[in-house]
């Protein structure tokens, strides 16, 4: 909603209020100011009058004018086609600096002296609202020839753009905003006399028009008839429509729009002949319900749908003819409910009607006819034809105590009464400390106590309410979700501390890609109905594709090493949500530096597993064949945490690496709920020295370490507290075998182990290995 100070001033006198103050007030009463644009026509641009206008002797398109500029008469050459004698115009005199920077100087145009310039709206920095030069008229107010334009409020004004909330349809007009400001500044609106003083001299509308309706459609309609003749729009009206960035095809539509913008009443103009009957019978308007359930104005055919749109054929034109002007009101909840049931194409008025237009129809219709009389040679028919619903104002009761409690401060009773009165509410039935408030129809948004409190809050000003801490009952409010937050926080910090960057991706992903890589996506009958783009058309079943895409982007940005992680939700085909944590490490192990001679090695399985255990703690890996196609078939493991499968860890399949354009890449995706988040307990530990033994075993290449491990576990003595591989070596002489060195750590709780204790432990393991796997020392 765009307003200007001069336009607003026609409805409420705020000439003593600065624009800064006005903007502050608008914001504080809940009419949010989005933008303020001040403009002023530069100095030495003045009001003038064309006294004579003759064709230039040597140029077809130029005119030589004698222009009265108050102090003198100047000769000015003008190229506009609409310049003529008798016209009041805007003159840029010698020395004027135009908004585009040009300085006006005396010039010779094809041999004729010209002392100044007759200006168009655009040339003086205004919206382009009129073709050719500005034709001034009484709409800009009083002026004298020679006076600077900047002294006139139309030419030096502030444009204020307000962003209205959805509930304030009553402020979609200059008058509506003036009404709210009248409460804020405690001053009354200007009275605009809408009475028709010529009423008795006019032919009654009833002689040419009748209205019938088939059933109660909750609609208010009011018609006036006009014999339209020579409607000419005044300059200010054209300028203001250009300022609010609206344009209509005909003068009559422009005028109606101006009135709607001024008063909030929704208006339409019909061509009378659309409704005219046979021969001499009078025209008939029928109000009916159409096939979609909307109230419609009808002749033989549909003329308009109330509050929604108008049919082209029924529209009035600027031709000399009889027209009907209609003011309408339909309750916003009725129209928007109907629109949600059955959507039909809407016109420019729907926004207004669905948010609540002005229900007091004569405010708009009366104002409109005043302007028609002023700016045309039309004659108006007397009386009007109308259809009104029976409406009684809503009544809301609220006590002073309730108001004070909701606000949290004591508000003066007289102040409350005054605020409500200025907002147009009737409080005459109030008793003692109980307010009984009758709500005017234009405030359809006010239905309960809290709505009334809101009105008081916004006019008292929230800044004037002192802040107060809430007094609460102490209670332990640390619930499960808080501990989940702490757990996420813990693992995220560990991830970051181990060199991974936290990444966040949309939970949407591309179905085609996911299916291609063998992931099952959301079942068809549960799928997204209205995805935003094709590449985000399903819910992700994995975090990995998002991370791989980010890896690829980073690689393209020149990062040779990419380490990312994400904690986020994924969805099963049945759309069940679960939390995962995933890691990706791609390309080089570390940055190029003195440490690696500028040639860092590529990430490998062992380093990835080592780093991951720094993040998530202890785990084991088992051989695994995944259901999807992202993994390298020979470097893929299942991650077991405390004996429970927690997820997958693998190298990306070389073909997939190629498809994403990335280097060697390892990933791991884990079920976040399985990651441990419990307090640790300390075990008893031995005070005696530990002993170490390294054994090199000759093992077939095809044998999995897990087989060895199982046998050692089955044959280990109480003293063997730990064993782990430390070297794996192969060469030609070993053939199909490898040499695997294991370190055994032995320790007793009772004593320092003797050589024979150690030997007997180790021998038992060697015997077991020989017996079960047929392997022995190298």
């Amino acid at each position, binding site marked *: 909603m765009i307003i200007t100070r001069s336009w607003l001033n026609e409805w409420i006198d705020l000439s003593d209020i600065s624009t800064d103050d006005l903007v502050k007030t608008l914001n504080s009463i809940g009419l949010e100011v989005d933008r303020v644009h001040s403009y002023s026509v530069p100095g030495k641009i003045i009001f003038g009058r064309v006294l004579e206008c003759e064709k230039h002797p040597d140029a077809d398109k130029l005119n030589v004018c004698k222009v009265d500029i108050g102090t003198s008469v100047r000769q000015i050459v003008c190229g506009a086609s609409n310049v003529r004698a008798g016209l009041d115009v805007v003159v840029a005199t010698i020395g004027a600096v135009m908004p585009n920077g040009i300085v006006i100087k005396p010039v010779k145009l094809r041999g004729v002296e010209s002392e100044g310039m007759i200006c168009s709206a655009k040339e003086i920095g205004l919206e382009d609202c009129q073709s050719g030069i500005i034709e001034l008229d009484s709409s800009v107010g009083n002026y004298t020839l020679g006076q600077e334009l900047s002294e006139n409020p139309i030419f030096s004004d502030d444009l204020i753009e307000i962003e209205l909330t959805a509930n*304030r349809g009553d402020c979609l007009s200059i008058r509506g905003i003036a009404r709210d400001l009248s409460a804020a500044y405690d001053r009354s609106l200007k009275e605009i006399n809408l009475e028709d003083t010529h009423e008795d001299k006019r032919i009654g509308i009833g002689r040419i028009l009748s209205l019938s309706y088939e059933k109660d459609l909750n609609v208010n309609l009011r018609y006036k008839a006009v014999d339209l003749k020579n409607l000419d729009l005044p300059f200010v009206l054209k300028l203001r429509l250009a300022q609010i960035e609206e344009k209509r095809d005909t003068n009559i539509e422009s005028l109606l729009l101006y009135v709607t913008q001024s008063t909030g009443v929704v208006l339409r103009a019909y061509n009378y002949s659309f409704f005219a009957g046979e021969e001499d019978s009078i025209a008939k308007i029928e109000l009916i319900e159409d096939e979609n359930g909307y109230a419609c104005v009808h002749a033989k055919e549909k003329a308009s749908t109330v509050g929604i749109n108008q049919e082209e054929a029924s529209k009035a034109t600027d031709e000399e003819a009889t027209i009907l002007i209609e003011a309408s009101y339909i309750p916003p909840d009725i129209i928007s409910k109907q629109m949600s049931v059955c959507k039909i194409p809407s016109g420019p008025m729907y926004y207004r009607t669905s948010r609540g237009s002005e229900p007091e129809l004569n405010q708009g219709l009366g104002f409109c006819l005043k302007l028609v009389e002023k700016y045309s040679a039309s004659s108006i028919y007397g009386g009007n034809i109308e259809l009104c619903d029976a409406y009684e104002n809503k009544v809301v009761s609220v006590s002073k105590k309730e108001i004070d409690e909701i606000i949290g401060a004591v508000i003066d009773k007289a102040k409350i009464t005054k605020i409500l009165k200025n907002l147009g509410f009737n409080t005459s039935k109030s008793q003692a400390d109980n307010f009984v408030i009758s709500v005017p129809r234009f405030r359809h948004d006010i239905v309960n106590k809290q709505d009334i409190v809101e009105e008081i*809050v916004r006019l008292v000003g929230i800044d004037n309410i002192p802040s107060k801490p809430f007094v609460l009952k102490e209670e332990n409010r640390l619930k499960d979700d808080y501990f989940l937050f702490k757990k996420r926080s813990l693992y995220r910090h560990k991830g970051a501390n181990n060199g991974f960057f936290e990444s966040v991706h*949309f939970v949407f992903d591309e179905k085609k890609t996911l299916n291609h890589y063998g992931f099952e996506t959301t079942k068809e009958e549960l799928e997204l109905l209205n995805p935003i783009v094709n590449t985000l058309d399903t819910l992700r079943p994995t975090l990995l594709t998002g991370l791989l895409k980010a890896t690829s982007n980073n690689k393209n940005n020149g990062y040779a090493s990419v380490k990312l992680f994400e904690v986020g939700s994924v969805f099963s085909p049945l759309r069940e949500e679960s939390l995962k944590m995933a890691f990706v490490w791609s390309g080089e192990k570390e940055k190029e530096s003195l440490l690696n001679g500028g040639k860092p090695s590529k990430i490998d399985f062992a380093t990835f597993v080592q780093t991951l255990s720094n993040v998530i703690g202890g785990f084991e890996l088992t051989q695994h064949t995944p259901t999807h196609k992202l993994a390298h078939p020979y470097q893929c493991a299942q991650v077991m945490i405390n004996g429970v499968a927690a997820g997958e860890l693998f190298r990306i399949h070389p073909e997939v690496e190629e498809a994403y354009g990335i280097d060697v890449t390892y990933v791991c995706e884990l079920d976040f709920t399985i990651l441990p988040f419990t307090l640790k307990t300390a075990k008893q530990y031995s005070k005696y020295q530990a002993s170490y033994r390294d054994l090199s075993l000759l093992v077939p290449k095809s044998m999995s370490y897990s087989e060895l491990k199982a046998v050692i576990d089955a044959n280990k003595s109480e003293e063997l507290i730990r064993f782990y591989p430390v070297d794996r070596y192969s060469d030609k002489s070993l053939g199909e075998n490898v040499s695997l060195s294991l370190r055994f750590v032995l320790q007793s709780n009772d004593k320092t182990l003797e050589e024979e204790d150690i030997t007997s432990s180790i021998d038992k393991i060697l015997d077991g290995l020989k017996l079960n796997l047929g392997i022995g020392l190298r």
Partner: protein
Amino acid sequence: MKEWYNAINQAQSVEQLEEIRIAVFGKKGILADEFAKMKSAPDEEKAQIAKDLNTHKANLTHELMQRKIVLQTLELEAKMKAEAIDVTLYGSNCEAGALHPVMETMDRIIEYFASMNFSVYTGTMVEDDFNNFEALNLPKYHPARDMQDTFYFKDEMLLRTHTSPVQIRTMMQTKPPIRMIAPGAVFRRDYDITHTPMFHQVEGLLVDEEGKVSFANLKFILEDFLKYMFGDVEVRFRPSFFPFTEPSAEVDISCVFCKGHGCRVCSKTGWLEVLGCGIVDPNVFKAVKYKNVSGYAFGLGVERFAMLIHQIGDLRSLFEGDIKLLEQFQ
């Protein structure tokens, strides 16, 4: 004897000094020699010779020790000098990762409210119409329910457009008093320079006995919270409209970039809108069958907070895992 003093003081290494020590003090050294010679001297001179020799012995020992300290110091210095490093070659070469600025901002927000005795509830992303709209006084014909704004599924479920459904579910499952926040991802069908289809919110709710919770209480906690998040800023409340609160307000802070003087970020207004809040609408309580209660609610967008706090210009960059952005938070 004098030449030995010179020899000690001219020794160039600890080894050379050791050779001198042996030559002077050793079993076959000159001192032993001199003492031996003394035996053949006349008796009356013996005492004087012995005294002189002992003086030399003490002096030489002292000189030897002194020289040794000097030489050791010089040798250590030489050794260390050989180990010299051009420290300027080395600098920060951080191999650490970093937390995502949005998640880190979310952490700070949660920590504030947890310390103010708010519970945390998270809920699910797939929601139904009742919890996301109906119960929040967003009737079927409300413009915010337009297909343009909400992601729907084929079975009429939807992706939550705010975290308010978590509040509805919590109210239905527990009894007042309630003091909670609901942090999490939310979804709107909007994708341009200033909108992403997924973003994060934290919404808060307080419910207590009727007449107990006031707008003044809401003002207190939000003013305190915004100062905790943004430091020394001015806080302004503007009346506004939300279907689920009444009275409602939008909360602005003085622009963190221009300190309220007006700049491009704040559209020359000096203020930045950061929060929406209000007193819970009676229709919301009616929907969850609460009686005789009062409450306040508020909600904020985490991305907006993160962008303002960390001066991040591009919203979409937050969802691309872009290391160019993330490495700045190491």
